[in-house]
């Protein structure tokens, strides 16, 4: 395969695209679990919209991944016919929904990262990556607007909503470090001008998160400990359960369509 792929080995690009696609696919599935269960109708529809945006982004990343891999796998094969150890999403995305506050906190922490990363990707040397980032960036900007607003309202809300948001932050904080880890794949992508080094996004991310948490009267744990492994296929037990539900139909009825 020629064209843009000659900037980098296709197996490296494939791995990097799986990280993008799997993170939004798994997060999108998690958010979709709220469908019909949200505290109010308006939130139910809003969360379903976010889930659909994320799954739409996953389709774009995974389609491109399949194209780059060149083995005849498309978005569907990659989403539904891989096992947990082949997924490359960050661990934060697969964490269970918990209560509404925890779902929103997880969303806010990832949205902030997504907005920064997609903005950089809009100038990727690979026009296919740049095009996906331009589309996904507008969606991510709205997601962040919404999740940041709700984190502030609930953090600086009633004593109960404040306690729930602080608990969520305490539980999720140690999963944020993985967003900024940088390995040889990130280095190669960065050297080729295809993607920013994730570590370079940390200070901007921290700035936005600090501002929102301050307004929400929430305090991030004073710990740099980070759970790692999702990006290289070592997942928490939660991903297997998620995939069992998400992949059930294609596993039970291979090739089923409607």
């Amino acid at each position, binding site marked *: 395969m020629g064209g843009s792929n000659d900037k980098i080995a296709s197996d490296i690009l494939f791995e990097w695209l799986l990280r993008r696609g799997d993170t939004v696919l798994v997060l999108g599935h998690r958010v979709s679990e709220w469908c019909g269960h949200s505290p*109010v*109708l*308006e939130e139910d*529809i*809003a969360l379903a*919209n976010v889930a659909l945006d994320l799954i739409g982004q996953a389709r774009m990343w995974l389609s491109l991944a399949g194209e780059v891999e060149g083995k005849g796998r498309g978005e569907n094969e990659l989403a539904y016919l891989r096992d947990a150890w082949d997924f490359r999403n960050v661990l934060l995305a697969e964490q269970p929904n918990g209560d509404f506050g925890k779902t929103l906190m997880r969303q806010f922490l990832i949205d902030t990262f997504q907005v920064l990363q997609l903005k950089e990707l809009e100038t990727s040397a690979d026009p296919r990556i740049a095009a996906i980032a331009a589309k996904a960036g507008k969606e991510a900007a*709205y997601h962040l*607007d*919404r999740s940041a*607003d709700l984190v502030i*309202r609930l953090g600086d809300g009633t004593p109960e909503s404040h306690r729930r948001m602080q608990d969520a932050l305490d539980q999720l904080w140690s999963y944020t470090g993985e967003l900024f880890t940088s390995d040889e794949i990130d280095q190669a992508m960065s050297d080729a001008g295809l993607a920013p080094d994730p570590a370079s996004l940390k200070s901007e991310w921290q700035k936005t998160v600090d501002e929102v948490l301050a307004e929400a009267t929430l305090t991030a744990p004073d710990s740099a400990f980070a759970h790692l492994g999702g990006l290289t296929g070592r997942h928490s037990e939660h991903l297997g359960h998620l995939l069992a539900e998400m992949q059930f139909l294609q596993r039970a009825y291979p090739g089923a369509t409607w």
Partner: protein
Amino acid sequence: MKKEWPLWEVFIRGQHGLNHRHVGSLHAPDAEMAIKNARDVYTRRKEGVSIWVVPSAQISASDPGAKDSLFEPSMDKIYRHPSFYDIPEDVGKM
């Protein structure tokens, strides 16, 4: 204490140049959230380019019981419709 969020009426402008039209209502704690919710509930299929929200309690309505005195008198005054005029072609769309 009333725990339900207040009701808001939602108006959407379908495209530039058109008026905002009432599309429905929703619950939200304040105007900012009402606009966000309206975006998610009422513009999922590219219905609009602008959103207005108004607290439902701020709308004063005509009395349904006064329907006859308010609207009946105009029923038989067809000369109020400007459909008896010939509009020259070069005036274009009115």
